[in-house]
């Protein structure tokens, strides 16, 4: 059964209503709360904020691999989460850069200080307690306030009683030994541990504990730091399960051996930036300088390897690019863009109606629908709206009309040739389609390249433009082919508009008389 034009039209109308409903700001007409969480995401240049590109500057001879970069990125992500920014962007870029965007954040000095700091990886003696991941701790290598900026250790206070901190964040990670990951000597190690079981945990203590005594909470002892770590890699244990393998440097082997052999059965914590990221239980003494951490799933293994790797290198980061936009400039830009968009839309509508008459009115309706679709998509995907992005959107309004112009030009030609209105509509669409397709695909190709280019330049600013233009072009094809066509079919075949004046032609053409059944 063929779908009739008016049926398609009803579907289009319903779709438009849905789009308009999504477009309405806030919780308008939303009794069930379906729209909660759907908002326009404003880019940095609109709501203000900070964008920083950090570049790894490793010491001579050290190479920054993708793994290390990824691990550094994860560290930065944790720090950014500590800043309380909503919708931050943290991406690795190329071989040695990390891009951070903090929309709405107002303190560039603080941001740079927090981001640029070198990550400090430590393995600490938890005095037999299980510390849940996420716990903030003070260690003998320095108090938590060292890394958390100038604020006097806001999260260090709950760390006073590790059990208390463990409760809010980790209902799942109960300190039951079975659930916690375990550390043991590499299976290859033939020699059992315990040969050098000298229980002197103080051996690893570097600074005196009183230096940190003003910070609240216990000070855990740092056994080794990232500098002692040679390498980390995913590997398998004797049962073939995926585990994290690690190797220590010469001097640290002894220290770690002493500690692990006297603490078998107890947990230890791996800490980055004073924040616990994993607390495996010591299964056996590790004296070979190599060990494994088991009991993690594949993703956790990967994350921990990256953490250990980047922690071992502790690559210094340098700010190579930054962009800070104040909030006033952003609001001003939004207001101006809205005015520009309305004026642009109005001019296009006026021109189309004056030149094409009835089809012009239809194209304006299609254009309004187009605008509602695109904006709804922006909210649903969601696309981060930037100033060039809005320009891309407004530009795409102009380009969206193109498909209609192409079709109407053909329609007029077919009518001049003496075709009936119904026939002219179909022929017009048929002949206009290759042009619409080819020309829009070439625009889409450039959008894709722009997107790639944007990744290396203004990040979201240029990418926003490429994405909005791409969506705009794609949706414009849909509205031209489906919406305009069906509107024309339904309206024009209804018999109301048989006078060709409506199409910008002077009544019936004199040339080849239209065959009645054509």
């Amino acid at each position, binding site marked *: 059964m063929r779908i009739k034009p008016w049926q398609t039209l009803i579907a289009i109308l319903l779709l438009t209503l849905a789009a308009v409903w999504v477009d309405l700001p806030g919780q308008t007409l939303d009794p069930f709360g379906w729209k909660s969480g759907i908002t326009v995401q404003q880019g940095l240049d609109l709501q203000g904020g900070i964008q920083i590109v950090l570049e790894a500057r490793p010491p001579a001879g050290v190479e920054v691999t993708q793994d290390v970069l990824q691990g550094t990125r994860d560290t930065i992500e944790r720090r950014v989460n500590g800043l309380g920014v909503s919708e931050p962007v943290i991406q690795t870029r190329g071989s040695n850069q990390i891009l951070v965007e903090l929309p709405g954040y107002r303190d560039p000095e603080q941001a740079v200080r927090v981001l640029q700091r070198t990550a400090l990886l430590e393995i600490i003696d938890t005095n037999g307690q299980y510390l849940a991941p996420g716990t903030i701790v003070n260690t003998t290598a320095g108090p938590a306030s060292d890394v958390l900026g100038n604020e006097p250790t806001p999260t260090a206070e709950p760390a006073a009683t590790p059990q208390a901190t463990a409760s809010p964040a980790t209902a799942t990670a109960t300190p039951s030994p079975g659930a916690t990951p375990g550390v043991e000597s590499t299976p290859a190690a033939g020699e059992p541990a315990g040969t050098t079981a000298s229980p002197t945990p103080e051996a690893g203590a570097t600074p005196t504990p009183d230096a940190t005594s003003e910070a609240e909470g216990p000070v855990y002892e740092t056994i080794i730091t990232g500098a002692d770590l040679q390498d980390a890699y995913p590997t398998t244990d004797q049962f073939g399960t995926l585990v994290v393998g690690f190797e220590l440097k010469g001097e640290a082997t002894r220290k770690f051996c002493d500690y692990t052999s006297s603490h078998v059965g107890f947990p230890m914590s791996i800490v980055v930036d004073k924040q616990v990221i994993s607390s495996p239980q010591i299964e056996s003494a590790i004296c070979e300088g190599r060990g494994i951490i088991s009991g993690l799933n594949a993703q956790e293994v990967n994350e921990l390897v990256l953490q250990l790797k980047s922690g071992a290198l502790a690559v210094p980061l340098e700010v190579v690019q930054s962009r800070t936009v104040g909030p006033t400039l952003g609001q001003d830009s939004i207001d101006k863009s809205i005015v520009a968009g309305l004026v642009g839309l109005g001019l296009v509508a006026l021109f189309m109606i004056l030149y094409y008459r009835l089809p012009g009115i239809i194209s304006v309706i299609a254009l309004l629908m187009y605008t509602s679709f695109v904006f709804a998509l922006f909210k649903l995907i969601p696309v981060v709206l930037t100033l060039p992005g809005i320009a891309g959107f407004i530009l795409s309004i102009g380009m969206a009309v193109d498909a209609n112009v192409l079709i109407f030009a053909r329609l007029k030609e077919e009518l001049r040739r003496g075709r009936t209105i119904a026939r002219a509509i179909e022929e017009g669409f048929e002949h206009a389609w290759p042009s619409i397709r*080819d020309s829009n695909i070439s625009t889409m190709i450039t959008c894709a390249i722009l997107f790639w280019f944007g990744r290396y330049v203004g990040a979201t600013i240029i990418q926003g433009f490429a994405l909005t233009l791409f969506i705009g072009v794609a949706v414009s094809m849909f509205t031209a082919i489906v919406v305009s066509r069906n509107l024309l079919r339904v309206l024009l075949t209804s018999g109301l508009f048989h006078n060709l004046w409506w199409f910008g032609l002077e009544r019936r053409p004199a040339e080849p008389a239209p065959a009645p059944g054509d």
Partner: protein
Amino acid sequence: MLDLVGKRYYWFLLSLLVIVPGLVSLMLHGLDLSIDFTGGTLWELQMSRPVQPGEVRDVLAARGYPDSIVQTSQDNVVLIRMKELKEGSPEKAELAAALRERFGDFTELRIESVGPTLGTAIRNRAVIAVALASLGILAYIAWAFRNTNNPFLYGIAAIIAMLHDVAVVVGSFSILGWLRGVEVDALFVTALLTIIGFSVHDTIVVFDRIRENLARRAAPTFEEIVNYSVVQTLVRSLNTSLTVVFTLLALFLFGGETIRYFVLALLIGVISGTYSSIFNASQILVVWENRELHRFLARLRGQRQRVPA
């Protein structure tokens, strides 16, 4: 019927008249590259009282930033271009304190900072992006026109028209840089790539008609078919450009200050793109098909042979 193709050399001449001054400016003056490409800092401040650019320059020079460019605009806004001043660095805090001491409190509207090495990398990426866009489009057109006699001819003609538009826009911005100090930034490259897309978009519509009319043998000669196709699509080309120009004009007049030159680049590009697709791209097809370049060169060679005789 309007004879557009017959006057093709006049249209080429008009293009040259527009392009040559821009190219001359490009050779003599080049482009004023923004900090996106050169590295450096752009600092926009809103002062609490009107200030003179010279006063600001003095403060900057005294603190070790002698070659800074300072512009003032309405609402006490000051725009400073200077060598790199890292965000969050002690140098920046010091300079801000010095400015506060001299001019009272101010609001930091924006600060953009780019390291010198990154600038070069961005410049290279921009060149690669434009080259990739050209190749991608050439490949697509050659594929879309694979059923014609010479698919690559269409691709090459479209690329020449596109380069024409790039030359017009880059040349205009070189002249604008010379006269008004307008800078070329990453957004300009974005505009350029968009223009490339639009220019080809426009050209393809005309080529598409030529393809269709060739298949229908709508006229006896290739030249006449091309002319017929261009005339047929003329109204559509102009109308499409007009609607785009309307939206861009609205953005240029009412949109924000930060994207004004971005919009201007697009505006120039769209107008040039429309011109080149009507008056250049399809005419190039005719020039090639009639082997006019070939004959022209042969005539030149012939003259050269005759001179010594």
